[in-house]
């Protein structure tokens, strides 16, 4: 399930992942919640992701709340060019804590890193916040495609490991996987 303030790019992130395209042009806000399927192959196993794309606006909160508890994983987004969306992350986390399952897989994403000039939230700020709450973090761009597949694949891997629970397989470590695979937004970053 994709959550976060209105306009942070939840739908664009999903469309980039699902269809490999970027929804350019005018902003179309999602109405209510939007349900889509995508089948991924993770380590040779097919994983069907049922993805809820939610509307960020306040008036849809009651519907999103109703579907939190069915979610196995949550992608929480903010927009690196919008400080308010970052400041609201705490409120979102509180809400998630209240409504979602205890063991829900959670990941924090700072989207729109392609707009380098407009950036107001530093990567370090995102990292710090994520560390504070113990959630994996990465910066993404639905426009360039940076880390988009990785975010969903990492979630899929984690969910696959959880549901299969093979005894002699080493435990999948989402944090480590993300740290290893994540790519920076600038050319000078490692």
């Amino acid at each position, binding site marked *: 399930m994709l959550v976060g303030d209105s306009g942070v790019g939840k739908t664009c992130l999903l469309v980039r992942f699902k269809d490999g395209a970027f929804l350019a042009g005018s*902003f179309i806000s999602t109405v209510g*919640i939007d349900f889509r399927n995508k089948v991924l192959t993770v380590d040779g196993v097919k994983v069907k992701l049922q993805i809820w794309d939610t509307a960020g606006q*306040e*008036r849809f909160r009651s519907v999103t709340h109703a*579907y939190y508890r069915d979610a196995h994983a949550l992608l929480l987004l903010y927009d690196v060019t919008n400080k308010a969306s970052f400041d609201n992350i705490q409120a979102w986390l509180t809400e998630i804590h209240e409504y979602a399952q205890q063991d829900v897989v959670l990941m924090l994403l700072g989207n729109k890193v392609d707009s380098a000039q407009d950036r107001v939230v530093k990567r370090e700020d995102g990292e710090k916040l994520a560390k504070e709450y113990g959630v994996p973090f990465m910066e993404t761009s639905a426009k360039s495609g940076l880390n988009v597949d990785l975010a969903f694949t990492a979630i899929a891997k984690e969910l696959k490991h959880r549901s299969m629970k093979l005894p002699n397989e080493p435990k999948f470590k989402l944090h480590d996987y993300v740290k290893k695979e994540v790519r920076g937004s600038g050319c000078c970053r490692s």
Partner: protein
Amino acid sequence: MAADVQAGRGGEEPGGGLAPGDGQHGERADSPTPGLAQGTEPGAGQEGAMFVHTRSYEDLTSPEDGGAAARSPEERRGEAAGPSSMEQISKDFSELSTQLTGMALDLEEEMRPGKEGKLEPAPQAARHDSVLSGKEEEDVTMDAWRMHRKHVFVLSEAGKPVYSRYGSEEALSSTMGVMMALVSFLEADKNAIRSIHADGYKVVFVRRSPLVLVAVARTRQSEQEIAHELLYIYYQILSLLTWTQLNHIFQQKQNYDLRRLLAGSERITDNLLDLMAHDPSFLMGAVRCLPLAASVRDAVSTSLQQAKAKSLVFSILLSGNQLVSLVRKKDQFLHPIDLHLLFNLISSSSSFREGEAWTPICLPKFNSSGFFHAHISYLEQEMDLCLLLVSTDREDFFTVSDCKRRFQERLRRRGVHHALQEALRTPFYSVAQVGIPDLRHFIYKSKSSGLFTSPEIEAPYVREEEKERLLGLYQYLHSRAHNSSRPLKNIYFTGPRENLLAWVTSAFELYICYSPLGTKAGAISAVNKLMKWIRKEEDRLFILTPQTY
């Protein structure tokens, strides 16, 4: 240009009526074919209607709504003004506004011939909502902003901007303050402002506490019709919030900024205003059906009926803004206004094209205090066929989603998929099919079913402005026919570019547009022929057997 108008109530008519002998007979004799009482006119459902029975927009100005508009807040709070004096005031006002309407019509006559092209800039001011950079709105100090044909503003009683069709609300906050001052000024005198007519403009006020809706229009519409459109905007806002929530919010905090709750819905409201300027559905207060062979429609309806769930209230299949099928719970009727709001919601966003959407929606004419939950999805990506399942249960997404799957399965099994696809290829029929050479276009509404039919708008109405001009003419005839103080039954209108004829009976409404070279006698015989054609085609053009679960 002349408008040959006949006031027709009972036998007052001076004769020379449109239909031979019309006005001398009872209402049943209104039609050329015998026995066209309400319920038997072409397009009337055989097993009752699927909509709440409405009398076009009179319904909107019925005491329930209209009374509230004329009332001052003092009265609503039950402090002052006995009902009798209030009645007197509102009566005075309705008389006053008729006088003004008369004046404005004269003005319009002056404005009308051929000047429109010059006066109007293209009504293009596409809105690009961007959360980041704020809306790229027009500069409200520019002439282009002033030249828009119809402005619509919504504000709260505290004078706070809620919505503006053009330009940003912030830039208009002082303008809206003035509007609220006008409203309050008259209310202080226990009066209510309804409209201002000046310089070819109509400024129309609709008061629906806690909101005030204002239109500034240079269109040919009557005050009544503009108010009707404003009410649609009000209902659109209710459909997002419910009446209960809206009132609750403003009771808690009078100066609440409602834009916060309505964020992202501007596009829906913009779309509704654009749609009302193009689609006669809103004017007619009725719903248009996709032309479809009765056998195919029945198969679709049966499939829809069988794919039911406990929480489902309405299952609606639509294409463009035309109804393909509607199945409802027994004893539950949808109001055409609610259906129009649903149509508008779907046409205003491309985000329904993929996936399955699940959203709370209030159907204000059905129940303005609560939300339904609507499942919205297109059957196939390339096909313009949208399924709308209205449920009472917020938690029921998966059950309702399964209904969709079952419906598609049944559709496939019945083998109507192909026929449906075929029908979607020609969603509109040509007026040439009627076989009346001078006939250019028509709108026919069956009052008992709340459905109407109309051919595609063809040459010479090719350009958008031309289409809008035609709809404007229909609007004009409609407003004359439905003028609350002086309704008309027959109107014959000759213009430089076309002739029009309107005929309103208790069973149906018919508006036809034909060649400017045609004669009145020709028009009357065309009407007879057209009515026969509609009767012959009625099972394709209308839904005659509405289904329930």
